[in-house]
């Protein structure tokens, strides 16, 4: 059973000016295995993928694929060899249909015209082979995220991919969709495709992966059979120390209601009612598309509210835009920090103070001393790792970027903070720091609404959990009732 590996990487290093992204990494992948690649942000996974797909050449080392040795690939070569990757952001054309996407750049032809019929037939066949039904003529923009991902997979497979790299494939999917994706992965595996599977969700690795390799700080750490690993061992290998995901003790909240929402509705939300108490963390759970982010945006005045009432303390308030919400000391840390949380071209300092410039200025002139003092303090308090406050936000790692967004809202001195997926795409160590931080905030009397797709985190952190489904509140759970099963049941049961 000592099978020769299909893909063998030996002594690969990649040096960027000032950064050693990969340091003498060696790994091998067998034919027809699902091989997890694990590491914190900045461990070098992305660079590793880029080298395999030919997007970047390694500084040194060799790649052995199917018996031949290469110093590097061009992207074209990688494709021809059958090395293919599906990234978190899909590379699809929304206004083209499925088969046009799949055959983009290698259209079948009949004379000088393209043979659309043949392409449609083949596309339908590919989909059937994977056990899914999709009309090849559906426009990609009309597909859900899960289906778009399937189109990406079909596209790779149809080019005779022999190694398929999947970067966080489950991140945008609901639990049910993840199951469907797993079925496809198993089918590919049975057909002899090697899958390199990257995910931060440790549980699913045990379900789908045969082996796991761990990287840390650009170095190779270990490769193990998945069956020999435990969650704790994986985390320890990733962070280099024993670190459980432990949650700080939650505070008892007071009975003072700081926010009361009644019958809030808009085109995505239906009759949402709940209360938020001082010093509590109110978790919001639900599947993707259940309306969690939409609720956050409506509460914050970022999306319009059609009917219903929001009471802040004793006052009924109406938010026409985020400014009104901020004036009522409500802050939102959006789900996608790069798209809507940060201004990547501006420095850490400018990002932190962006929302509170008025309070830092006299007669509209910014008082730069006060600005610096404040940033200095927040960078220290939140332990943002950076050479200085003038560093551009775009140059920071995911965890540190998230801390900058948090710093920005701490600076604004809001009493109610809505965190939408506060730990998405953040490594284990930084997650821990954010948990502690959230708890500290509640101790200071701030109230937090936390939206998260990670159930352990919600269960560990919240005082109460609201479960949403199809734009409605499907149920509320008190701390004593928390369990993954209960939440799932509320989130997915159809009435």
């Amino acid at each position: 059973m000592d099978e020769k590996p299909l893909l063998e990487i030996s002594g690969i290093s990649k040096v960027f000016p000032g950064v050693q992204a990969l340091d003498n990494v060696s790994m091998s992948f067998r034919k027809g295995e699902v091989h997890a690649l694990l590491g914190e942000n900045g461990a070098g996974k992305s660079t590793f993928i880029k080298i395999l797909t030919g997007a970047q050449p390694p500084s040194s080392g060799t790649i052995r694929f199917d018996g031949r040795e290469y110093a590097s690939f061009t992207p074209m070569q990688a494709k021809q060899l059958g090395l293919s990757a599906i990234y978190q952001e899909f590379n699809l054309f929304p206004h083209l249909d499925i088969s046009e996407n799949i055959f983009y750049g290698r259209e079948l032809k009949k004379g000088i015209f393209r043979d659309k019929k043949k392409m449609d037939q083949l596309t339908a066949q590919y989909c059937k082979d994977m056990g899914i039904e999709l009309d090849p003529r559906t426009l990609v923009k009309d597909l859900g995220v899960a289906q778009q991902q399937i189109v990406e997979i079909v596209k790779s497979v149809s080019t005779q991919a022999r190694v398929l790299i999947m970067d966080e494939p489950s991140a945008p999917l609901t639990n049910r969709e993840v199951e469907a994706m797993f079925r496809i992965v198993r089918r590919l595996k049975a057909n002899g495709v090697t899958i390199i599977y990257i995910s931060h969700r440790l549980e699913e690795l045990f379900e789908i992966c045969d082996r796991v390799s761990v990287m840390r700080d650009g170095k190779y750490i270990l490769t193990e059979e998945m069956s020999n690993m435990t969650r704790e061992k994986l985390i320890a290998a990733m962070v280099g120390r024993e670190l459980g995901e432990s949650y700080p003790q939650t505070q008892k909240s007071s009975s003072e209601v700081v926010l009361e929402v009644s019958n809030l509705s808009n085109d995505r939300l239906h009759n949402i009612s709940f209360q938020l108490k001082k010093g509590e963390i109110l978790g919001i759970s639900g599947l993707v598309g259940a309306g969690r982010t939409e609720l956050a945006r409506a509460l914050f005045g970022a999306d319009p509210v059609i009917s219903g009432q929001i009471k802040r303390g004793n006052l009924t308030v109406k938010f026409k835009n985020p400014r009104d919400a901020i004036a009522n000391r409500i802050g939102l840390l959006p789900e996608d920090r790069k798209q809507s949380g940060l201004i990547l071209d501006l420095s850490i300092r400018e990002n932190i103070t962006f929302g509170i410039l008025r309070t830092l200025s006299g007669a509209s002139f910014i008082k730069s001393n006060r600005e610096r003092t404040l940033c200095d303090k927040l960078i220290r308090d939140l332990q943002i790792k950076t050479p200085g406050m003038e560093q551009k936000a775009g140059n920071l790692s995911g965890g540190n970027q998230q801390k900058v967004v948090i710093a920005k809202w701490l600076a604004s001195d809001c009493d109610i903070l809505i965190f939408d997926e506060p730990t998405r795409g953040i490594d284990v160590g930084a997650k821990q720091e954010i948990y502690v931080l959230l708890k500290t905030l509640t101790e200071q009397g701030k109230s937090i609404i936390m939206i998260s797709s990670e159930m352990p985190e919600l269960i560990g952190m919240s005082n109460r959990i609201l479960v949403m489904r199809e734009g409605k509140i499907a149920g509320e759970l008190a701390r004593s009732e928390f369990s993954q099963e209960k939440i799932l049941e509320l989130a997915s049961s159809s009435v």
Partner: protein
Amino acid sequence: MTNAGQLKNVASKYGILIVLIVLIIFFSIASPAFLTSDNLFNILRQVAIVGIVAVGMTMVLLTGGIDLSVGAIIGVAGVMAAQLMLSGVHPVWASLITLAACALLGAINGFFINTVKIPALITTLGTMTAIRGVAYLLTGGLPVFGFSSSFKMMGQGYLWIIPIPVLIMIAVFIVGYIFLNKTVYGRYIYGVGGNEEASRLSGVSVQKVKALVYTACGFLSGLAGLVLLSRVNSGQPKAGTSYEMDIITAVVLGGVSIFGGEGKINFVIIGVLIMGVLSNGMILLNINEYVQWVVKGLVLLFAVGFDRFITRRKTISAAAA
């Protein structure tokens, strides 16, 4: 990453200064008339119009927008002020009324972009054409002249040895520098261009910021129009035609990203000087006007191409980190 970033910054910052120096050396050798104090002041006076508007254009580009109507506003400003003065309005009042009208034209650009939500490129393409038409309509297509000679001071006067238009340009740059770097709205301009949604979610009124930059750009175009009027002493409806081209080129040469969010006004002045030296040098060398157009067009493509190159390099190295 930081080393490469610093290197790139040095290249993009001083690259443009090196271009200016090389141009100056080249023209000094090629034409004996170039490096004389008369000619150098001449260049400065000539670039004043472009320079004044470049400050407004910098703000517009920083928000990720563009304003093609600046040349037309320069034209309408001259015609309007000339006619007001001819009809007996005091030059100071005529100037103030014209400036207000031009600011209003800028605000109208802002309205179409903010409220009707037409992209800036199309909005200002439309207003550019319409405003130019108004300039011709106001005069029936003829130049307007014969107004008070006291108005000449603004375009032709000197303070000690420095031409007044140059002083105006320097003042505009100083105010622009302070505004962009020291004030709340200056910071917002960078923020809106860098990430509009994040700015909105930070409680910034994106629409106000955009309205402000287009209004300022209209106002400064009006100011430039007055200076031009005073220099040529007659209100020409065609004045300022295709100035938008020189102005945008100068700003982009100065390193302001056409995608917004990035750029420093102190480098824009170098871009303005390059455009001035280039025009002046080519005229001294008796280079055919049509050839000059070709050169200017290529300079714009070069400047934008360089911006794209830098952006791309940055995305690659950012993705790598």
